[in-house]
């Protein structure tokens, strides 16, 4: 099923008269999804203030175009798409990633960091340490395209398909970026634990 077209731009002059019943319907149907839209905004925007502004603008744009929403379809998805479009229109942000994106190769490499951790005696890295600050720092250090997919998938529990939809990138690219981002985070955390002196000299007998 095709979703309704989402307007990319909006000007003050396009504000229209809003009967109370229309607004009430909008509030009843759209506002329950505010938490989900806030999560999308938080994943896309740089900071909380920008994210909150993005949520407000998303709802105002959705209200102005409420007539284009097909009743009975997925309102959360409709709002999330508007949120994504507002964000992209505001930021004019590119989606260029220089690294080669190959989800199959990234998937095969998924155990690389574990092998390194195991060789350094850090097999139980995540059970032994409070890695919260290190994880937050490592995520902040990721390039934006990688950070976006990690936040959407691993913090906000979006599916691969939802992320592909939101960021307008192919499904394979979502997987590739996500798996690569996770590998980069794992390697950063192993390095962090090593810096803390928790690693033992590398044991090459470990496969």
């Amino acid at each position, binding site marked *: 099923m095709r979703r309704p077209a989402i307007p990319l731009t909006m000007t003050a002059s396009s504000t229209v008269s809003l009967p109370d019943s229309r607004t009430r319907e909008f509030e009843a149907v759209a506002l329950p999804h505010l938490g989900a839209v*806030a999560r999308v905004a938080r994943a896309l925007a740089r900071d909380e203030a920008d994210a909150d502004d993005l*949520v407000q603008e998303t709802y105002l744009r959705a209200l102005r175009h409420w007539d284009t929403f097909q009743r009975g379809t997925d309102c959360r998805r409709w709002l999330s798409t508007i949120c994504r479009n507002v964000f992209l229109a505001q930021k004019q942000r590119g989606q260029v990633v220089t690294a080669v994106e190959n989800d199959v190769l990234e*998937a095969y490499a998924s*155990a690389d960091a574990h092998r390194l951790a195991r060789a350094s005696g850090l097999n139980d890295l995540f059970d032994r340490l409070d890695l919260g600050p290190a*994880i937050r720092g490592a*995520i902040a250090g990721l390039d934006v395209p990688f950070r976006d997919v990690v936040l959407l998938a691993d913090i906000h529990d979006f599916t691969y398909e939802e992320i592909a939809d939101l960021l307008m990138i192919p499904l394979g690219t979502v997987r590739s970026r996500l798996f690569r981002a996770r590998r980069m985070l794992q390697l950063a955390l192993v390095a962090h634990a090593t810096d803390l002196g928790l690693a033992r000299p590398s044991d090459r007998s470990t496969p």
Partner: protein
Amino acid sequence: MTAPAARSECEEIVSRLWPHLDGALPEVERARVVAHLEKCDGCRSHYDFARAFLEAVHEAVPDDDADRVAALRARVERAIARESDQG
């Protein structure tokens, strides 16, 4: 030393660990991964490491809490009211 055939099977399973943990595998593949993990300590170890990593990441970054969403909702409702009044 792992036999070539077993190594190939393990590589296939390792390449599906992330989609498996993300709940993104079709049922047939999911069952194959689960069956392999039950009999292969090496792959099970990779799986445990990956799962512990995802749990640590999820716990490290707080999601939006209810109070914050409620405050944001009140703000959006005010904006909607203003928009309606202007109409």
